[in-house]
Structures are given as structure tokens and as C-alpha cells.
């Protein structure tokens, strides 16, 4: 029956990312793609997933997706809201977060992330927003999932700036950081996971209909594939329905505001 469903690459990406979150997980959610995936998980297979946003909202259950990290919806539906210093001290640095869920502008094969500058820091070609909460989400969470669209501009050989640390080549990440670091990259084409030896991210699952060449063409380094590459299970009708509902409600609500 699933072959009757039509869905976009973005939808596949969001569904695949949402499935990475197990029920009951305590997840620190970045804005944008991670927020959509985390809330889709909560509205489908993981009703008890615990979502934390850096604005201090703990166990939030937004009915619509927040446009910013501190929308009123997040506080109104939260179990409680703490100050931002407390959020970063007790909850993130304190080791209470099991999964940090991040977006990215650029990353390299070790899942180091750049959201700071393109070009030289002091004379940048493009000044990006900067790291925000990501540098410590990346190191203090038990593990980190990253979700972004596959493109040569996004998946680069060398970053101009390491904003948030990925895995260290051959290194024991846990020793330096408290957490395992990034363990999954979920894109609109595939899922990548670190090679247990080199820590380089390799393709472990491809979405239906995606060719290897597409991934190669959209990756800025010589991307490698796992010995056994699985096919990502397609979105179910239910997942698509819930995701589209969520986006529709979100759009209506945000258009409705003054």
C-alpha cells in the first residue's frame, strides 16, 4: 500500500529523523528541521518523548511548531519553564539530556558543524548567525542527531570554522565531552552514521528511489557507503498525515498572528 503514497524528500527526511527518537527519550531540540522531527515523533510513535528547548521550556508539547526557540506556545504547553542560565547549567551541562537534535549550515565528514562564518573569521564572505546553544548541546548530550538537506554547499571537505564539535578522528569522544557526540545524520537522501574505526560518517541507509550517484554528487567529500546499505522504510500514511496536519496548523497559526 505504501507505493501509493507520494511524499517529498523533506517529508522523508523529517519522518526518518523523527523515527530516530525513541519513546521516553529526553531530547534537547534545535529550531527548524529538528523541531518538526521531534514533534512528529511525539505525535506518532513516541508520545512520551520529553522535549526541551533552550528558552528554558521543559517537557513542552506544542500544538504548532514554534517559529523561534522561545515562542509562547512552548512555555504555555511546558511542564515548567526555567531561566536560561538554569537550562544550560542544570539541564544541559548537568547531563540530563539524552539526545541533542541539531540542524546545521555546513558539516564535515566527522559531523563537525559550522554555523559561524564562510571565509575568514575576521573578513568573512558570509557572516552566519553563530553557534547559539549548539556547541554545548553537541558535547553535553548523551548523543547527537543532525538533520539537514543534502548539498555540496552543506557537506564540505573542510569547514571554515568549527562551531560545534563532531566526532574526533579515531578519538574517544566521550572522554573529552561527556557524551558520544553525533551518531546520526539524517538528510533528504539518506542516513549516515559514523564508521566505528575512523569516525567518518558513512551512508548506512538510503531513502527509496535515491541513487548512490545523487549522494556522491551532493557531498563535498569522497563519501563512503557502508558494506550493507539498507533502504530507509518509507513514511506511513499516518506519519504523513500527522506531519502535514502539523505544518498546516503551524502555518495557519503563524499567519493569524498580528
Amino acid at each position, binding site marked *: 500500500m505504501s507505493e501509493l503514497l507520494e511524499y517529498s524528500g523533506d517529508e522523508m527526511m523529517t519522518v526518518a529523523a523523527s523515527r530516530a527518537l525513541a519513546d521516553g527519550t529526553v531530547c534537547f531540540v534545535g*529550531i527548524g528541521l529538528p523541531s518538526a522531527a521531534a514533534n512528529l515523533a511525539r505525535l506518532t510513535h513516541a508520545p512520551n518523548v520529553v522535549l526541551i528547548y*533552550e*528558552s*528554558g*521550556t521543559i517537557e513542552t508539547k506544542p500544538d504548532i511548531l514554534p*517559529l*523561534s*526557540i*522561545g*515562542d*509562547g506556545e*512552548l*512555555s*504555555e504547553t511546558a511542564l515548567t*519553564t*526555567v*531561566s*536560561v*542560565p538554569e*537550562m*544550560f*547549567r542544570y539541564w*544541559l*551541562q548537568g547531563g540530563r539530556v539524552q539526545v541533542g537534535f541539531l540542524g546545521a549550515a555546513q558539516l564535515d565528514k566527522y559531523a*563537525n558543524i559550522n554555523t*559561524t562564518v564562510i571565509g575568514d*573569521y*575576521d573578513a*568573512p*564572505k*558570509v*557572516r*552566519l*548567525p*553563530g*553557534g*547559539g*546553544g*549548539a*556547541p*554545548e548541546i553537541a*558535547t*553535553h548530550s548523551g548523543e547527537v542527531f543532525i538533520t539537514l538537506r543534502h548539498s555540496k554547499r552543506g557537506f564540505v571537505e573542510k569547514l571554515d*570554522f*568549527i*562551531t*560545534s*564539535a563532531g566526532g*574526533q578522528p579515531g578519538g574517544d569522544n566521550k572522554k*573529552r*565531552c*561527556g557524551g558520544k557526540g553525533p551518531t546520526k545524520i539524517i538528510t533528504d537522501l539518506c542516513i549516515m552514521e559514523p564508521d566505528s574505526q575512523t569516525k567518518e560518517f558513512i551512508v548506512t541507509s538510503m531513502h527509496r528511489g535515491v541513487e548512490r550517484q545523487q549522494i556522491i554528487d551532493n557531498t563535498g567529500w569522497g563519501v563512503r557507503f557502508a558494506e550493507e546499505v539498507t533502504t530507509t522504510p518509507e513514511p506511513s500514511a499516518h506519519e504523513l498525515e500527522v506531519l502535514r496536519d502539523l505544518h498546516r496548523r503551524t502555518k495557519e497559526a*503563524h499567519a493569524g*498572528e*498580528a
Partner: protein
Amino acid sequence: MAKVTSLENAIRDNVNDGDIIAMEGFTHLIPFAAGHEIIRQGKRDLTLIRMTPDVIYDQLIGAGCARKLIFSWGGNPGVGSLHRLRDAVEKGWPQALELEEHSHAAMANAYEAGAAGLPCAVIKAYANTDYPKVTKTIVPMECPFTGEALVAIPSIRPDVAVIHAQKATTKGDVLIEGILGVQKEAVLAAKRAIVTVEEIVDDLGDVHPNACILPSWVVSAVAEVPRGAFPSYAHGYYSRDNKYYQDWDNIARDRDSFQAWIDENIMQSATGDAS
């Protein structure tokens, strides 16, 4: 003890050219009206501190008020770039802008340490990142008990903090509810503090025993400015105007349209009218 006064006087009495100023509000309760009054009064050479220098600081930077920015995330939330910030950093217009860049965790801890009367915060941060290469105020340390790698960062201790809150009493006690951000810390870390509020009331009523309340004796000036956080929001009063943020992208993309907007909406508008 807080002086209950007009926004115009609050800014005039407490913000000087060259000051280090922290205007906080984490998406919620951003003190936009106070920012506009600072532009209107033509303050110059400010060092602006803010975790998320979004549209409010884009306006101050574009209007030529700032010489330095200390921050951790500079974007238009949910929309994209801050074009005035980028123009200052990339092209030096209307003047060069020095950057001191941190992560949210470091900034939040630096405010917290400032409020706590400490000269520095000692935390776990920045592991395996490039921040220490560009931000000279990140100093590696070691725990004297465990040997664990830590970093010290200087605490934030501004000349003046500016925040917006829901309510103050006629005496000047301030109530903040909902997303609290780092406003309490910014006020307690600063030498002087200005608070704009949605409304001034006789008393705060039957409020929770552990609500976030700043006593009047830690505040320099309180001014009643209804919708003073617009286009951000005030929990219990009004919602975020997302369209304003989206429209800002177009206005700020171009120097001329930006200047026209500032002239029309800030300079030719009376205090408190900016919304």
C-alpha cells in the same frame, strides 16, 4: 530604589555614550520600545551585549549606535540573516563593528556569574571548537580536585541592563512570568537597570510565592510602556508579530529602505509610538 518615570527620562538618565549595555529578553519580552528610544536619543559607541541580537540590535547597529557586539546567536529567528549586522561586520557600514563571540551556554553563565558577584564563570564549554581561536577571553583551566578540563570566561557586568516585563508596582517591584531568559541575571549583573512594563499596578496581587520578582531596590528606573516588547510578545498580553520579523528581512536588506524605515518609524515618532 526604582524611579517610576517616562521611557524618555529612563534612557536619558541611565544610558550614556560609550556604555556597555545589555538588552535582554529571550524571544519573549524583548525591550524594543527602549531600543527605539536609544536610537531616537542618538546614543553612540555602545558596546551591545545580547545572547540573541535579533531585529532589535539590527536596528541599533544599522542606526549607528554600536561599536562592539558581544553575542552568541545573531539572526532573525525563523527568517534568516540580520542584514544590518552583516553589513556592519562584512562591509563596515555605517561603522565597523567589533565582535566578541560566545556560545549561549557561555553567555548565560557569564551573566549568571555577573549576577553572583563573581569576576568569572568556570564551566565545561567549547570542547573541540574554534571559539578559543577567535575569542581571547576563553581561558582553559583545570579542576583542582579531578583534573577535569574546564574553561573560565569573564563575567558580564554591564553599565546598564534594559529589560521589559509584564508588571511593576507603583513602588517599582517588577514581575516577570513565562520564558524568563536571562533578564534577572542581566539586571543583577548591571550597575544600573531600566525596566519597561506593560502596566503599573498598585500591587502584584496573589502571585506565586516563588515567582520571578525583582525588588524595586535593584532597579534604577521603571517606565510603563504598553506593547513595549512589540513585535516580540508579552506572555498574558499579546502574541509575537511574526509578519513584522518577515517584513524586516526586506526592509533591512537595503541601506536606503532601512534608513527610510528608521526615519519614519523611530525618528519622527514620539517615544512609545514605535509599534
